[in-house]
């Protein structure tokens, strides 16, 4: 059953430039303590790619046939060990050796940046920012034996009550998106809580407030005037990531429709986009096909000099247009 109110996000993957401002703004505010280095409540990864935690989409979790599906919590190697650097020794104490990341790397948030797939000149990639989906059916909450994760009725945000958390990690196994983290020092789960303390003060969540690509929209999902509602329900161009996981996410994505067409052998312009539609269907489901068609048609409309409400919504002429009536 939908909750009375639900905060939702729309992230335009065409406007996302992979700059990591959201990643860092979130991290600085919420997960900058010792032990929290591997926690990225918000991260931006290159898609297609292994992502963060590594291969997050292949660990199970979520729902199958209406029931919680078995999942596996990410292993330590899926995060990598956050590098440390001994600058003091090299710069101030005469140690001759260069400053090496310790331990030497194996994986990190953004390890496979810009690698993508395909063969030159038809290589392809795009950026995929990921935060908690604040799902309408949060598997993390349902899996928690202590009822430490609650979905707030007033805004649908899914938050961890650290006072109740016993650190058994059931939520990490249950979340198919890898978006719940366990603090290795405190053994308490942590995750995006929608920046509710900022919302209470009339500020946008840190990720949205720092998004210099102006790619992130936030609003109550039922706010019919807000861009979120209009993109999700009126234009039907904003889609949840991996809807097949069954958790009914409340973060929606405008799929990448900008970008070159595949190149032909003689260097000419082919007929299909470099990003294979099959990949977008895999991650956004079949609804991505009509969404892409709508987006392309509306862009063509603007190219012909005619107005397009959809393109204006995505342009978001004023920063406040991205924020519904949240702030």
């Amino acid at each position, binding site marked *: 059953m939908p909750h009375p109110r639900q905060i939702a996000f729309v992230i335009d993957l065409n406007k996302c430039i992979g*700059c990591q401002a959201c990643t860092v703004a979130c991290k600085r505010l919420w997960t900058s303590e010792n032990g929290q280095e591997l926690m990225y409540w918000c991260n931006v990864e290159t898609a297609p790619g292994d992502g963060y935690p590594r291969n997050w989409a292949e660990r199970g979790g979520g729902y199958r046939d209406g029931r919680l599906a078995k999942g596996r919590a990410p292993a330590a190697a899926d995060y990598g060990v956050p590098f440390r650097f001994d600058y003091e020794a090299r*710069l101030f104490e005469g140690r001759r050796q260069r400053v090496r*990341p310790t331990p030497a790397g194996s994986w990190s948030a953004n390890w496979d940046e810009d690698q993508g797939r395909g063969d030159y000149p038809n290589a392809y990639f795009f950026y995929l920012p990921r935060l908690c989906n604040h799902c309408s059916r949060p598997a993390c909450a349902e899996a928690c034996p202590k009822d430490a994760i609650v979905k707030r009725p007033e805004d649908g945000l899914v938050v961890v009550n650290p006072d109740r958390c016993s650190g058994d990690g059931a939520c990490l196994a249950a979340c198919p998106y890898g978006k719940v983290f366990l603090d290795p020092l405190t053994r308490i789960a942590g995750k995006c*809580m929608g920046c509710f303390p900022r919302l209470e003060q009339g500020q946008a969540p840190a990720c949205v407030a*720092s998004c210099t690509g102006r*790619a992130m929209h936030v609003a109550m999902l039922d706010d019919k005037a807000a861009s979120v509602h209009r993109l999700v329900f009126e234009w039907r161009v904003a889609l949840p990531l991996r809807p097949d996981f069954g958790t009914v996410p409340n973060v929606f994505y405008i799929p990448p429709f900008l970008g*070159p067409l595949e190149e032909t052998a003689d260097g000419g312009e082919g007929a299909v986009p470099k990003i294979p539609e099959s990949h977008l269907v895999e991650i956004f489901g079949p609804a991505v096909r009509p969404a892409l068609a709508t987006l392309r048609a509306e862009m063509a409309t603007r190219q012909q000099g005619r107005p397009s409400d959809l393109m204006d919504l995505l342009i978001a002429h004023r920063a406040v247009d991205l924020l519904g009536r949240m702030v």
Partner: protein
Amino acid sequence: MVAAAGGLSLRALAATHAPAPNGYRGWRQMLRDRTGFDRRTRGAHLVNCTGACPHFVYVKDGVVVRSEQSADLPSFAGLPDSNPRGCAKGICGVDYLYGAERLKYPLVRVGERGEGRWRRASWDEALRLIAEKIVTAAVRHGPDTISVFCPGPAVAPVAFAAGHRFAHLVGAHAHTFFDWYGDHPPGQTQTLGVQCDTAETADWYNARLLIFWGSNPVETRIPDAHYMVEAALNGTRLVTISPDYNDTATKSHRWLHPKPGTDLALALGMAEVIVREGLYDPAVVAEQTDMPLLVRSDTRRFLREADMVDGGAAERFFAWDRGGQGPVAMKGSWADAAPPAEGSPFLGRDTRGFPDGTLALGALDPALEGRFHVTLRDGRTVEVRPVFDLYKAELLESYSPDKAGPLCGVSPAEIVRLARDYAAARPAMIVSGAGINHWYHGDILLRVLHFLAAITGNVGVPGGGVNHYTGQWKSVLLPGLTALAFPTGTARQRFCQTTIWTQVHSEAPSPPESAAALRHSLETGQMPLYPKGGRAPRVFIAYRGNFLNQAKGQGHVLRTLWPKFDLIVDINIRMDTTALYSDVVLPAAHWYEKTDLNMTEEHGFLVTTEPAIAPLWEAKNEWEIFRLLSAKVAEVATARGVPRLVDDEFAWERDLSSLEERYTDGGRLVSGEDAAQFLLDHYDPAPGEPPVRLAGVRADRPRRLLSAFTSPARHDAPYVPFQYFAGLKKPWPTLTGRQQFYLDHPAFLRAGLELPVYRAPLDADPYPLRFNTPHGRLSVHSTWRNNPQMLRLGRGGPVAVVSPAEAKRRGLADDDWAEIRNDHGRIVCRIKVRPGEPAGRVTMTHAPELYMDLIEGGAQGVCPIRINPTQLVGDYGHLVFRPNYYGPSGNQRDVRVEMRRYTGPIPI
């Protein structure tokens, strides 16, 4: 039970309001507390970045806890908002306050340079040590053996002015940087007679076709990139031209990928199509360019008045009037107005005082094509042809798409299509970047891009033009900056040209044609060199710039130039490579601990930073440091009995004993705040605009500064350059008074480059891979390169990016160690395999610190200094040396290297 449950819940509710005995007020409150702060101040990041992004800095319990974009930039009607402006790096700005590389105290080297062994010194001791060496150098070797390097005045004009004011009063030579860094567009100066000028990036939205040519704003102009995507959503067609499938290409409608360094052929092919198919605007060509000017077939030089008339001007030029059937002098050339004595620092000559409409042709109908004959002063008759006629013949002969295509690897059909699209779209904008400018022949390509814009009427119009966003050069508060940094005038300041300075003093090898041209240029005074007369520099003071880390020819700089210095001083917030290899290091106040201003060519609003906290440890702001150094030099000079120094070059008796009084202008410029207000006092507000007060700038949202470099300034729309000339029809600041594509200087004629024609990239290094060093997403040059958070969003250290094919050919896999080398140097680095990277190239984001995770070398070690002779010209109308206006660029992309598996030991 129900009542009991209700009671429990009430008690639980109460507990969230009253602290528990241990002070715990619940987890929700703990989270809320993290967003709290005691104080919010304005902050900016005074690094060599073009962002100028306004931030708020939050302080809690005396600790800077974070910074966020202030998101309060005013917007233009009809254009998307530019808020929030900033990036991940700015949000990490606080790290350099408290990070491990922070400099806390004055340090004096006790080990070898670069070893990292220091002893802590008092400020008094450190300043005395520096002052002693300065006085010794000045008295024994001459003040011009003292060298002060500090780039990027626009981003920190107070700090910039501090060291330059000191240099000016002592007699030290100052450095150029825009050219040395390869960012100055010499081709734009050659063509337009300007240092550089660009539109505010908001103007991208006005283009109908937007070509990103060697420019990757999604990665390197992060706060501006949204305008590009928003333009696409608004119906603009986007084309990216880059050898690799880069981040900007992923957002574009079309991606063309010429072979590295061959973009010139693509541009010439486009020019050929537009000219051959008649897609240009002949009226604009006749009025705005040198295309109608007549060139003598016998000498390949312009027909000049002095050729035909006794006592005629050498700098007056002619077109063939189709009406009157004869040569007619064209208005606005160099002969029509003598350059002002002081000169404009950013224009070949200041033509802004000419009447509007000077270039208007009226009834004149100049021929663009044909061969004509004129009679010279001595009675001889010679053939003359308009520049357009010459260039059209050249284009049609050599650069048809069928000929240009194979040169650059772009299919002829695509060249035709891009040319037609470009000519048809009005307006069409080319955004050019370091990817094409950092080449030895990058200037020729810029000339052709300007040709494309000029002949299609895309100059001076919103959404048009060629915008070269590379380097941070535009100091909107230029009058104040000049007065503050060079108090007795720039004519009495020694400026060296840093590419030449580094080449000569590091005794780096030079291609023979460069060496001969350099000798000639220096002997004839076209380009400067300090110290003069073959002497070596003795004292080097670097601040706000990582000279050593970024130096081309780095091996020679370290081996040969560095030992020439009796003293190297670095003033810095952090231990960068140059600081590490210095003798004395002075701790500077962090950006959040001092007052300064911050400006950019990318938007026209004044950004500021102010002390959020007092400087930590013993750090001081640069204005104070150079004031204290001035006082110490005065003290030492007086004590040594050398209070005065006669400086012959300027016939200037320098009174060292009163250095501090002159530095502070008799006590008027004691603090950084005084200096900032001085800069603002020299701003000339538009009629009705209030003067700018520092306090107001801090309290209010960023204020728009009107600047009229090459266009009248306006509040209500983005600045678009060159409207004085293209719109108001005042002469261009060039020799001919027009956009000048024909350069008949002997150096250009000798090189066959009087017109912009194809030159292949240099293949002087006999190795298979081009070495490409672009800017990076998570760094600004070397700044943030060593930041742990940025490194955790990558692989923990520098990587060399190669295509799967090149890796496989060498038996290398992703994350392997590889050796990259050529005859200039060697790098041992991990590799990253990326399918979007073309074969034949290796890419390494510049410029990791020399102490970072490379087993050996640095990115600049394999890059030599290669001076292009045409950039040594300093005696041709608008082509003269002025600091950062014209001089040889520190190009570095023609470099070739080999890469192979590294088999040596890997340190743990």
